[in-house]
């Protein structure tokens, strides 16, 4: 992990095993499958539900500052706490939580490399016991919007020479062959992708055991398709969670200076009246590779 641009944002399963009960450390599981935590989790770990605790449940938005302060305070997380996130499916929603915590300025938040899958596959100790943390006061910073992109910024970026968009959905979603992933009912009005976007499915950044690929492999993956650090990169997917994983990879593992997550993503763009849509596979243009 030491080759990454910011190796301090990752911890290994061994590290978590050794430090999970340290008083300044809080471990939190965030899964896409919101029932997985109850089956068994890292001893001492809390569980956050992304559908009810990490988003605004009334209007479509990330969690508010007040709600985040409440969640972290009730979880016993202070401003100086080392917060370790992990989850199922290559840390998919752990990355979503990480993105939001960085938006609100939590200093020391890290991801357990390999996530829940690696912990289980290694046969480590799990528990069904839910810890009751001692509440503390948490004060979040004002939201840092520089790591988030809104519709208007994406519309501008579409024609910008210094920008690039990476669509991290599956190839079938990107080309418009399907409107939503198999088994998921929420579709959109149009299939395809934002014109000019490059398709690099998010999970290509991971190894089979759920850990992140090496820096060299990640550089080959992204730079080989024109997603380079000199450009302002916008990552998007369907609802902004897979793209938060790619955001994490580009920003922290590769150290790109200008990366943002368009969390409106395809469920916004693909439903928008008059929005231009490209379908099918694309060949990289000179602009994209420049």
């Amino acid at each position, binding site marked *: 992990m030491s080759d990454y641009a910011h190796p301090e944002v990752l911890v290994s399963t061994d590290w978590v095993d050794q430090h999970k009960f340290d008083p300044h450390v809080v471990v939190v599981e965030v899964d*896409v*499958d919101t*029932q*997985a935590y109850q*089956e*068994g989790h890292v001893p001492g770990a809390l569980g956050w539900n992304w559908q009810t605790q990490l988003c605004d449940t009334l209007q479509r938005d990330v969690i508010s500052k007040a709600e985040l302060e409440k969640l972290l305070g009730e979880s016993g997380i202070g401003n100086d706490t080392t917060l370790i996130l992990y989850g*199922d*499916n*290559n840390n*998919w929603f752990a990355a979503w939580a990480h993105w939001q915590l960085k938006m609100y300025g939590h200093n020391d938040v890290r991801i357990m490399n390999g996530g829940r*899958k690696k*912990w*289980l*596959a*290694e*046969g*480590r*100790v*799990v*528990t*069904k016991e839910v810890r009751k943390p001692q509440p503390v006061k948490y004060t979040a910073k004002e939201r840092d919007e520089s790591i988030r992109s809104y519709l208007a910024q994406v519309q501008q970026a579409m024609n910008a020479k210094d920008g690039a968009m990476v669509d991290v*959905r*599956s190839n079938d*979603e990107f080309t418009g*062959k*399907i*409107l*939503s*992933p*198999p*088994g*998921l*009912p929420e*579709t959109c009005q149009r299939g395809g992708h934002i014109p000019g976007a490059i398709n690099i*499915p*998010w*999970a290509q950044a991971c190894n089979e055991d759920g850990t992140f690929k090496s820096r060299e492999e990640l550089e080959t993956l992204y730079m080989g398709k024109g997603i380079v650090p000199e450009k302002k990169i916008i990552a998007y*997917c*369907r609802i902004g*969670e*897979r793209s938060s994983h790619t955001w994490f990879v580009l920003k922290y593992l590769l150290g790109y200076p200008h990366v943002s997550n368009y969390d409106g993503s395809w469920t916004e763009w693909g439903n928008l009246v008059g929005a231009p849509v490209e379908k099918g596979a694309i060949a990289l243009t000179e602009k994209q590779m420049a």
Partner: protein
Amino acid sequence: MNAENFTEEIVTIEGNSVRVVTYRIAEEYYCHVYNLDPGACIARFTSVNREKAKEEALAKAKQRLLKTAGNH
């Protein structure tokens, strides 16, 4: 207690490749079926018997995939 017998395999249901994960915690076997991308859990079943957990989870996955087969 420890997580035990973690297995993962790719199978095809109704023309869709899915990832089937099983493991045991204490006396129970858990089986989850995920679509390949994004990797969302589309079915699950818990049983004291591994084969039963897998069989039921795959049956539930098939039902769910059939419901979204028209999203093309």
